[in-house]
């Protein structure tokens, strides 16, 4: 493979910007922080991605989607999965959080390292999740675990809407 041109790197970014998350298609893998970098090397393009939850079954699909998007744009690249630094919901852009809310998923709080309680059996201030439909904070957690590894189930006690919450990670 020949050395990459800067134009290819820019093109790859533009192409990958359009790749949606397979589970939550209103946000892109870039906005979620899964797509970490596009690097032009002497051996060609290198796409750096990072897994979300260790067992997230969508990762295989995401890799396939990235390959397919690049191939459709006539780009060849090597996919590199990088674990460190560990993915965090803090990397989610403000625009992505708004899109999640509009889609009916309460976005994650920011995880300040100092706020992470070692053994938190009980609810803390971090668990104050606003209803994405009516904005009320009068909500309750139905289940710590939801339809995907990254979400928990909640219910609004004012408008009675059941909703997903993207858990801070």
């Amino acid at each position, binding site marked *: 493979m020949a050395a990459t041109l800067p134009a290819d790197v820019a093109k790859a970014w533009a192409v990958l910007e359009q790749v949606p998350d397979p589970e939550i298609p209103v946000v892109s893998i870039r906005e979620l922080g899964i797509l970490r970098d596009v690097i032009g090397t002497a051996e060609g393009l290198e796409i750096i991605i990072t*897994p979300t939850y260790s067992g997230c079954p969508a990762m295989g699909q995401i890799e396939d989607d990235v390959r397919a998007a690049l191939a459709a744009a006539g780009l060849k690249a090597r996919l590199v999965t990088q674990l460190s630094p560990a993915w965090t919901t803090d990397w989610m852009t403000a625009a992505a959080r708004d899109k999640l809310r509009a889609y009916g998923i309460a976005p994650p709080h920011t995880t300040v390292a100092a706020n992470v309680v070692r053994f938190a059996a009980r609810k803390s201030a971090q668990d104050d999740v606003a209803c994405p439909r009516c904005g009320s904070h009068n909500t309750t957690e139905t289940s710590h675990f939801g339809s995907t590894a990254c979400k928990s189930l909640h219910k609004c006690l004012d408008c009675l809407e059941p909703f997903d919450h993207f858990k801070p990670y």
Partner: protein
Amino acid sequence: MSDRITAIAYLLHLADNALVLGQRNAEWCGHGPVLEEDIAMANIGLDLIGQARLLYQHAAGLLGGENTEDKLAYFREPGEFRNYTLLELPNHGPLAGSASADRDYATTITRSFLYSSFMLLRWEALQQSSDTQLAAIAAKSLKEVRYHVRHSSDWMLRLGDGTPLSRARMQAALDHLMPYTQEFWTPSAFELAAQKSGLGANGEDIHGDWDEAVDTILAEATLTRPATEGHVPQGKNCIHSEHLSWLLSEMQGLARAHPEATW
């Protein structure tokens, strides 16, 4: 023991722990006491299997040759597994032999509580491992195990400090499982070597914190911590109970019947 052999044994120990408990938790899929718990056990199992994959991939890289994560998970014999005996025990726990012997949620929750509280401290320590890949896996796993601790602690309180029946079943599960935790604190040769090389964590350092965390929840759950004398299990040294081979034969059956199959 060379550093490479030590690292492989240590990684397989961590990976086998995650895989075997992931498989046990997955047995609840479709059988959870309520829908939310069915989903919770599947999610926790998925986290564990994901962690196992990362650890097996790393171990396979160190082993070299034809090794892959699938080979390590599906084509090793029970006598080659290094998981704690605690994690291979069936979900029916102390109810064995009774009419409701199939699955006991008290056993599943108590095991998840004892083990995830331990792993929270262990993953914290392993973030400083001299093996950078293991440190990276630890940083990810730590974020996940926090949710496992929260989930299991919550149910320890609800069921322990619940009805007389739920409390009795939680106490029976605790009495049954607690002696197996002795294996956490009895270091094996590979753990001592890994601690020396900087790859592994020192169990002594986290023992006090674990006792404190466990005692706090047990007290609030109105449960009595049982004594832990007697036989110390040796799962991590590849000496298992009879339950592991049954678990593996179910888990490995498909891969062995159709090697290299893809779909």
